[in-house]
């Protein structure tokens, strides 16, 4: 309570002094202003929590000042005080965001209660703002970790498209973080306080796609025991994210196209048209143009959803981001698992850098999570990583290296019997001798 700052705006000196003394004794930090212009100047220089404003003042009245204060900071608590109360001024004050309206002389107990309530409200507002910022920060960063050129380009596109309302098509291999990019776009858009609804069409059988998207009325089909809202209806005001859009049935494609054109839809088995307002973000790991050519995807829907395409690079094309991503996931799982991993050993990093990552960032995340479960703090070692990573590392190399290793392996297996080895290798003895010479292979 002691750090609460209150500004008293009144043209009467005696009122300013009385309130100054009163609030000072409560331990608040108080400043006074004799007119609206002085108050506005003070508010531009310093942050205040509560402003008490007299209505009747020369040059600019208190209600005009209230409107101007709300333009500067709509969350600032303003309490109106007046010696000339009227219903009109009270309604006007509350309509323009005043916290309360007090009539002079004020009952001291009433003022104390109002100030305490105002402080509670201000604290809640501030906490709400802080939490929303925190949430935005989490979603902005999560999943779009990296400093490589390809990922910087993605971040640039996301920031560019997020504030607009245009449909976005995210193209990328499985595990590249398509849903996270869609969430980031949603969180940076004006729809961020409305729902983000994700549906993986690819995971649904054809018959279920429509009822999941559009919902259904009770008794619409066997098993429709209750009326159920579809994802489109739930996403009203927010963002609908359709993953694996290429796998959508032709019938569902037609219905979705109609919704996009009319902003209306009907639940399955229903008659009433429902209006909806949502932003559409689709994702695919297939070449949609190719699917259009093959007749698997409707061209008109493709044009509708492909207004702003964003291509996500596979992890193998941005391996320079692996150390950053690794640290990001270590921090994430340190918190979740209550562990204290500091990083990975050089050997483990080399394995991670050499691996091809067909499952992309998701596969990397899973590998780090698993390593943190099986490994010992403070560093993840090569031992903690799945065997397949290391196998692939061994196989990667020039043809000559692999040939040398393979010849050596066969010779060891045949106990250095040249005839048997050449038979297995399907080359003649002379060629085998030549290769052994070339690679410097001698019996151990």
């Amino acid at each position, binding site marked *: 309570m*002691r750090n609460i700052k209150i500004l008293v705006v009144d043209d009467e000196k*005696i009122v300013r002094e009385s309130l100054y003394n009163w609030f000072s004794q409560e*331990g608040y930090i108080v400043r006074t202003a004799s007119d609206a212009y002085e108050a506005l100047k003070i508010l531009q220089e310093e942050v205040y929590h509560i402003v008490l404003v007299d209505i009747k003042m020369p040059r600019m009245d208190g209600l005009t000042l209230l409107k101007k204060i709300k333009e500067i900071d709509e969350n600032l608590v303003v309490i109106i005080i007046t010696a000339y109360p009227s219903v009109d001024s009270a309604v006007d004050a509350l309509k323009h965001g005043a916290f309360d309206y007090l009539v002079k002389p004020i009952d*001291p107990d009433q003022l104390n209660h109002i100030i305490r309530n105002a402080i509670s409200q201000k604290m809640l507002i501030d906490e709400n703002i802080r939490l929303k910022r925190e949430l935005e920060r989490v979603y902005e960063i999560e999943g779009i970790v990296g400093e490589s050129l390809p990922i910087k380009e993605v971040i640039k596109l996301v920031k560019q498209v997020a504030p607009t309302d245009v449909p976005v098509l995210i193209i990328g291999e499985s595990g590249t973080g398509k849903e996270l990019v869609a969430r980031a776009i949603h969180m940076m858009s004006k729809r961020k306080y409305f729902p983000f609804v994700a549906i993986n069409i690819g995971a649904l059988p054809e018959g279920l796609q429509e009822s999941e998207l559009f919902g259904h009325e009770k008794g619409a089909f066997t098993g429709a025991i209750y009326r159920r809202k579809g994802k489109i209806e739930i996403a009203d005001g927010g963002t609908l994210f359709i993953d694996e859009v290429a796998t959508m049935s032709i019938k569902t494609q037609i219905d979705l196209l109609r919704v996009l054109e009319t902003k209306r839809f009907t639940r399955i088995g229903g008659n009433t048209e429902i209006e909806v307002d949502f932003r559409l973000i689709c994702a695919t790991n297939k070449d949609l143009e190719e699917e259009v050519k093959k007749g698997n995807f409707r061209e008109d829907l493709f044009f509708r959803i492909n207004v702003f395409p964003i291509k996500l690079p596979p992890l193998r094309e941005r391996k320079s981001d692996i150390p950053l991503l690794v640290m990001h996931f270590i921090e994430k799982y340190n918190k979740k698992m209550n562990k204290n991993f500091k990083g990975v050993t050089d050997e483990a990093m080399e394995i991670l850098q050499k691996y091809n990552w067909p499952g992309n960032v998701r596969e990397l995340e899973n590998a780090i999570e698993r390593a943190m479960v099986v490994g010992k703090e403070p560093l993840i070692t090569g031992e903690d990583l799945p065997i397949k990573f290391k196998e692939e590392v061994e196989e990667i190399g020039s043809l000559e290296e692999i040939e040398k290793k393979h010849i050596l392996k066969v010779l060891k297996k045949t106990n250095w019997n040249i005839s048997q080895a050449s038979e297995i290798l399907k080359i003649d003895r002379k060629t085998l001798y030549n290769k052994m010479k070339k690679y410097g292979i001698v019996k151990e």
Partner: protein
Amino acid sequence: MYIYILIISPFSYKLNEESLCEIIYKNFNVSTIIKEQKIDLSFSYDPVRNQYNSSKILYKLLEILPQDALSLIGLTDLDLFIPIFTYVFGEAQLDGKVGIVSIHRLKDELYGLPENPYKLQERMEKEIIHELGHNFGLFHCENYCVMRASNYMEEIDLKPPYLCKYCKEFIYEKIKKINRNIKG
């Protein structure tokens, strides 16, 4: 140095001076001198409100402040106000020298109850200690403490006549500092 209690006559209540001095000493560790004086307070009278402006009275008390006073609290029968509020039980300078307490709204009979001199003495003592606390620089306190804000008589009855340990600590340090300054 003393704490002065100035009874502004005419004053309708027979004060238990011994009890008042004792409670002040327990809280501030300073001796009290009680005086009675007739002062014309008509300059602070507001005929519209039929009340007396306590802020104006404080200026008058400053004029008659004795040299050896750490603090002076006026005690009156009159109904007090400060312009923005409907009434006050008392007013004091924060970190200053003077304060005023009114017993007008501390009497049970104002609320239709039978006279209760014992309760009145208790309330008056609490309000005097409260205003003295402001004089020594104390803010309102959230603890079970005489410095708790009280705008209704019930709230005065609910709080103790003593400073909480934090306020007490503050006062001892403050008085030590004042004494050092006087000696130095």
